[in-house]
């Protein structure tokens, strides 16, 4: 089925993940590779040829956002660090798992981080492993330093703000249901149980929330 990805990507978040249309068979001339400016797909191909500098370049580009997703989902700096390491080592060992034809690199990378974090949460019985009380700001107790939006991060800063604000406009019930599903990895039935709400109510909240979110992001 041919599907138009760009039409569904109003913020261009996927486009922000640098990409070119090249095949895996295309040669990569490592001698002339400008790692700082190379497209994500090119760097992934270089990784297939065991180019450590390519992995380093992708880490420099996306290390903070991968770490931040893991930290958001796990609430534990050590676990977030361990899982972020796993994500990039997985990329190194099996770069062919990324299929440029099915989406952009950053989307895939963050989905790996999210799925791995969900697995970790489930293996820990869905309980957070905070050794110290975290604060929503995180700076003090999570010992994590908010990254400044410099360099490559600046290109995605606006998108992050837009998405954050879009989420904030949702009714609390809808936002909570979506966040429980996306960041908590809970099924709809589990969410219904946790919120002590009928399953149908939870399904409706998620559906309405996603509809509204999509409309906001398209605007």
């Amino acid at each position, binding site marked *: 089925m041919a599907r138009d990805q760009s039409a569904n990507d109003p913020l261009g978040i996927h486009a922000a993940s640098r990409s070119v249309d090249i095949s895996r068979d295309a040669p990569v001339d490592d001698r002339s590779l400008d790692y700082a400016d190379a497209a994500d797909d090119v760097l992934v191909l270089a990784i297939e040829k065991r180019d450590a500098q390519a992995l380093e370049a992708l880490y420099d580009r996306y290390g903070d956002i991968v770490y931040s997703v893991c930290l958001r989902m796990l609430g534990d700096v050590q676990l977030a660090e361990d899982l972020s390491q796993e994500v990039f080592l997985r990329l190194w060992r099996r770069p062919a798992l990324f299929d440029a034809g099915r989406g952009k690199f950053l989307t895939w990378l963050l989905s790996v981080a999210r799925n791995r974090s969900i697995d970790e949460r489930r293996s820990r019985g869905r*309980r*957070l492993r905070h050794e110290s*009380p975290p604060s929503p700001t995180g700076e003090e107790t999570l010992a994590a330093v908010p990254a400044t939006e410099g360099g490559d991060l600046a290109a995605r800063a606006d998108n992050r703000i837009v998405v954050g604000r879009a989420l904030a406009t949702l009714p609390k019930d809808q936002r909570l249901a979506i966040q429980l599903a996306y960041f908590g990895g809970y099924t709809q039935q589990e969410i219904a149980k946790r919120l002590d709400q009928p399953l149908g109510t939870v399904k409706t909240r998620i559906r309405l929330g*996603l509809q509204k979110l999509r409309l906001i992001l398209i605007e």
Partner: protein
Amino acid sequence: MLGALEPQDARSLEAHLAGCDECARQVDAYRTTVDHLAMSVPLYRAPARLKERIMVGIGAARPAFLPRSLVALRWWAGAAAAVLVAFAVGGITWAVILSSEVRDLREDNRQLAELSELDAEQRSALLQLRGDLISARSQQERLVTTLEEQATFLVLALDPDLIPTELEGTQLAPEAGCSYVWSRTQEVGALTCQDLPSTSFSLVYELWVTLGDETIGVGTFLPRTDGTAQLLVKLPAEVPGRMSRIWVTLEQQTPTGETLSSSPGDEVILLPVPPQQAAR
């Protein structure tokens, strides 16, 4: 999309999407929306050691430390060069020293050769060890932080002028109980709780105090897996005298994770024990 369907529902949906282009397009549209959610996380700077761990893990970086023999080799190489100059100027006395250093250099060269003969598996094991050491160092840092917190609690426990307040769980957490103590000398308040229900990832407990007409959130916390929790808050000496109420609510973390809630929500978890009940 969200991955929130039960496995059998997910399978049914996949089967339907395989034969329905219209639904597949709809799902793709929402999948993109869902993909955006990851971008809503507060952005944190990854620890510098993470990059080192990764690069060491793929064998692309040499561990930050050098084997002693290599360090010695580097040092002796410099020393030997200096001694050579001195030998030319100073005469036969330096020759003896040079001879000794050359012997050391040969020994270091031999050790270096042995190191270079390590096979890939041994090098990998060394690199893995390096990664483990970095992890251990990180855990040690966290332990030190925890110990410092515990030391503060201990100092508070020994303070003879503590002002205690007992809090009990509401119907939302009937088993829960907390003790809040404040030390005038330390200007520190400590909340210790037991039997707190675990929270979902987006919810956090928050301690509130009312000072005159003003209500402020002084700190947030989450329970450990055994239901206990601790929170240290720094309050100026004059504050507790004006404190007219203290309680704990369950609050949602803001999507951007920027600030504490500006006002307490309705989900009150802990309230002070009424005086007559506390007296019993």
